């Protein structure tokens, strides 16, 4: 006989990391919507933004459970994936926190140029940390087939993002499309990883590690 608490705990353990990632994005979206409609002030929004970051903890735990289940036999591979997930969760949290801090500081105060430069550099460095985490995943990966899939994904992402940036840049120069801030090309690169995963699935029958 399983009591309600145990059942609830077991049910929680079965939740996928995507559930927590979705919850985090939904919470951030709700806060952004509240701030955009002036329902809450920017200070309150910045403070509230910290709350969804706590969802990174169950998300990492759920992802680790999944990595353990998939790679139960291949301990080193499971460990590599666990480290990757931890690093990505860390840099994602840092990105959200530093972005909120930079936005809050520039809206509420008029920080001097040096401080503004420092605060504006932090979110970009957090994204650079995500690239580093993917690089370490490739270096530390012990399964050569999975490593090849990850490299293929990264190459597809790079080709996709640089091609999109090149085409958009010339269209922008010709005043055909609107200006896009450069950090969006990193977002396109991460989307390109998804494109690479689909191509891996078609050619090799499996999505890859990222």
């Amino acid at each position, binding site marked *: 006989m399983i009591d309600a608490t145990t059942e609830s705990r077991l049910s929680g353990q079965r939740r996928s990391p995507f559930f927590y990632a979705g919850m985090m994005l939904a919470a951030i979206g709700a806060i952004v919507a509240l701030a955009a409609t002036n329902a809450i002030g920017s200070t309150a929004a910045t403070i509230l933004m910290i709350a969804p970051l706590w969802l990174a903890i169950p998300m990492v735990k759920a992802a680790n459970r999944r990595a353990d289940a998939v790679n139960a*036999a*291949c301990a*080193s591979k499971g460990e590599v994936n666990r480290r990757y997930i931890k690093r990505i969760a860390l840099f994602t949290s840092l990105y959200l926190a530093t972005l909120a801090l930079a936005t809050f500081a520039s809206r509420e105060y008029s920080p001097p140029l040096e401080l503004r430069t420092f605060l504006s550099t932090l979110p970009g460095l957090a994204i650079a940390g995500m690239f580093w985490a993917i690089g370490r995943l490739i270096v530390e990966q012990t*399964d*050569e*087939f*999975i490593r090849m899939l990850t490299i293929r994904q990264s190459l597809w992402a790079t080709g996709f993002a640089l091609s999109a940036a090149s085409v958009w840049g010339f269209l922008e120069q010709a005043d055909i499309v609107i200006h896009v801030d450069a950090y969006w090309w990193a977002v396109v690169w991460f989307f390109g990883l998804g494109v690479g995963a689909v191509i891996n699935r078609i050619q090799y*029958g*499996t999505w890859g590690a990222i």
Partner: protein
Amino acid sequence: MKNRLKVLRAEHDWSQQDLADRLGVSRQSVNAIETGRYDPSLPLAFRIAELFELAIEDIFQLESAP
């Protein structure tokens, strides 16, 4: 490249996961090698040959080989 991995695995009554465990790779790797989608590196090919106590050429052959 073609290979006899699936036959050898069946002879030992191993699942893909069993073989992956013994080789220290993922099940996806075993599946990709068996289906000819991926050719293993020389070190992994040696590990496979060692596991089945065969020579590499008894497991892996070029497509054009008789």
